[in-house]
């Protein structure tokens, strides 16, 4: 019996000793300032279906951080980029938001998945950690956090540019839509529909598919009967590719149109280069040859990773550059001061000239390109 009592008391004593007399959680304040490396978190899907996006993001951000560190860091302090895997799951995201807070990261890069970023936003706002995301959903703006910034345009910009080109320039009015019911697809659906209705165009078909659907013969046959002049696709890379491939098998010959995913190599591979021909793409970063900056970036990217740079890497690179610039200009401020510094940063990046407004969006233009001979080529004029 005495032995039993002892086992009961030991953990009790240990806990009491570790507890001291304070209330739990009182020593929550962590060393966010001072010397040592500057800790920045990169949160993205490193596993799961969206991990290709996460991998691209990491490469772009890492490139920017390495360049700064090679040049001596910020105010003589090295930058430490810690990678966290959100698995594409919003709930994991909320856990990670708390984790990066408790580990003393002063800013966050990512995520590429709007739903995850939206889930994390309230916690990051409470913890006053600025976040530069690669998401593009209008829902990010609606989240209304002054600590949340986008490293590219929102779907509204992408689709407004696209609608302008298709309807105003090309004069195509018979348009069919296929979007998925995921967070990206829904954003695209709403944004493109809004852009069309502002031009008094009603789509001839508005089909919604699921994110893991694989057979589109039913929806595509329905669309074929409507004889549209162009088909808008709002889905991620792979699904867009499958839709285009199956549409061609069904004898649909009209061009497809869409935003960033349709410009990626994954889309081209999945659809097959021949099937993807003439696809109209709205993207802020059509190719690595648009400017001197992009050529330099693409060369560095190729040298470091031995693969060609693409949009997502470029966006993450831009976002990281903006963050580091703001850190420098604010003398490594944290919290609200750092957010204000980001908002004040004017930056000429790969995607264009960034100047943030109150909603956290810094860039409002995309360009139109088409796929010709398996390559995305800018449309001039």
């Amino acid at each position, binding site marked *: 019996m005495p032995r039993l009592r002892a086992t009961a008391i030991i953990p009790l004593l240990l806990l009491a000793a570790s507890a001291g007399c304070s209330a739990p959680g009182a020593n929550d304040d962590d060393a966010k300032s001072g010397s040592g490396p500057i800790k920045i978190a990169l949160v993205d899907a490193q*596993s*799961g*279906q969206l*991990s*290709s996006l996460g991998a691209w993001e990491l490469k772009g951000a890492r490139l920017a951080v390495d360049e700064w560190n090679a040049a001596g860091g910020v105010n003589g302090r090295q930058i430490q980029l810690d990678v966290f895997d959100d698995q594409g799951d919003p709930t994991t995201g909320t856990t990670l938001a708390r984790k990066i807070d408790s580990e003393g990261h002063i800013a966050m890069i990512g995520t590429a998945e709007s739903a995850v970023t939206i889930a994390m936003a309230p916690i990051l706002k409470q913890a006053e950690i600025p976040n530069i995301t690669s998401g593009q959903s209008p829902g990010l703006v609606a989240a209304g956090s002054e600590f949340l910034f986008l490293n590219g345009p929102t779907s509204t910009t992408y689709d407004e540019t696209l609608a302008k080109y298709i309807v105003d320039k090309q004069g195509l009015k018979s348009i069919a839509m296929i979007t*998925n*019911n995921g967070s990206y697809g829904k954003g695209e659906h709403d944004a493109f529909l809004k852009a069309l209705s502002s031009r008094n165009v009603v789509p001839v078909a508005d*089909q*919604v*598919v*699921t994110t*893991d*659907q*694989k*057979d*589109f*013969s*039913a*929806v595509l*046959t*329905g669309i074929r*009967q409507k004889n549209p002049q162009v088909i808008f696709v709002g889905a991620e890379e*792979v699904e867009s*590719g*499958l839709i285009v491939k199956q549409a061609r*098998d*069904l*004898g649909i010959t009209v061009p497809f149109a869409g935003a960033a995913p349709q410009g990626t190599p*994954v889309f081209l*591979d*999945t*659809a*097959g280069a021949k099937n993807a021909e003439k696809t109209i793409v709205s993207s802020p970063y059509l190719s690595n040859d648009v400017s001197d900056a992009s050529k330099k970036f693409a060369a560095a990217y190729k040298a470091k990773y031995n693969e060609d740079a693409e949009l997502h890497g470029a966006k993450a690179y831009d976002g990281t550059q903006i963050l580091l610039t703001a850190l420098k200009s604010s003398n490594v401020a944290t919290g609200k001061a750092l957010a204000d510094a980001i908002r004040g940063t004017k930056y000429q990046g790969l995607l264009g000239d960034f100047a943030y407004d109150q909603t956290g969006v810094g860039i409002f233009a995309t360009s139109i390109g088409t796929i010709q001979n398996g390559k995305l080529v800018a449309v001039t004029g």
Partner: protein
Amino acid sequence: MQVFLQTIIGGVSLGAVYALVALGFSLVYRTMGLVNFAHGNVVTVGAYLASTFYLTSKLPFALAMVIAIAVTGAIGLVIERVLRPLENRDFDLMLIGTIGFGIVLDALVIAIWGATGRAVPSPVQTEPIDLLGLRIRTYDLVVLAIAAAATVLLVLFLSRTKRGAAMQAVAMDHEAATAVGIHVGRSNAIAFMIGAGLAALAGGLVGPLLYVSPALGGALGIKGFAAAILGGFGSIPGAIVGGLAIGVLDSFTAGHFQGYSELVTFIVFTVIIMVRPTGVFGERTVNRA
């Protein structure tokens, strides 16, 4: 009308693949009364193996398939061997054991091939056939032909060979089969091996049709399972009919209910199971529970 027919065509080709998956489920079930929840993951492994040999090792598609089937057959043997101590002891535990294998295979696939997946170009490059405005992909016909051939071979194996007859005997009454000297463990192992091989066949065939990714098998597995139950679990013709039925049902719900298609498919499935638990061909359930 044209939409209707085209929808059916789309459903039938995927339905043939579901049928192959369902055959694998049914064969294992009728022989040992076990539902193999790892079956879908074996489909994924088969799809990756076939596409790897086809794309990376540049082997002919048919040869790539054969190798994939052989390797997954070996995986099937391993699963059966590990779970053998549970045979005829606890159904639910065995079922959970296969879920455990599924979890492991799922992680292994991602660890080996990555999480993103790959597109497989169709091995048949001919243009689709145009029939009064209906478009039929030639590869779809190949899939249907192979599925039919596999079914015929399986039926012949079960009815004409000694080994197959032994398996039939085990399926009907495994105690009596033991009494007449049939090695039940070996029969089960063969059933598992053929089941896994069929999974690989389905996975390999579906690769060029869809897109090979870690999530592939999960979707095919659950639809194939639904197909097997719908047709009458353990029944060979049931698996075929069930597969085609689920394929067409899926295709129609996708057309009519769009985003909600999955919801409708599973609710329809649930209602059918409740009305007729033994499925279409469920003349006798081989339940040893």
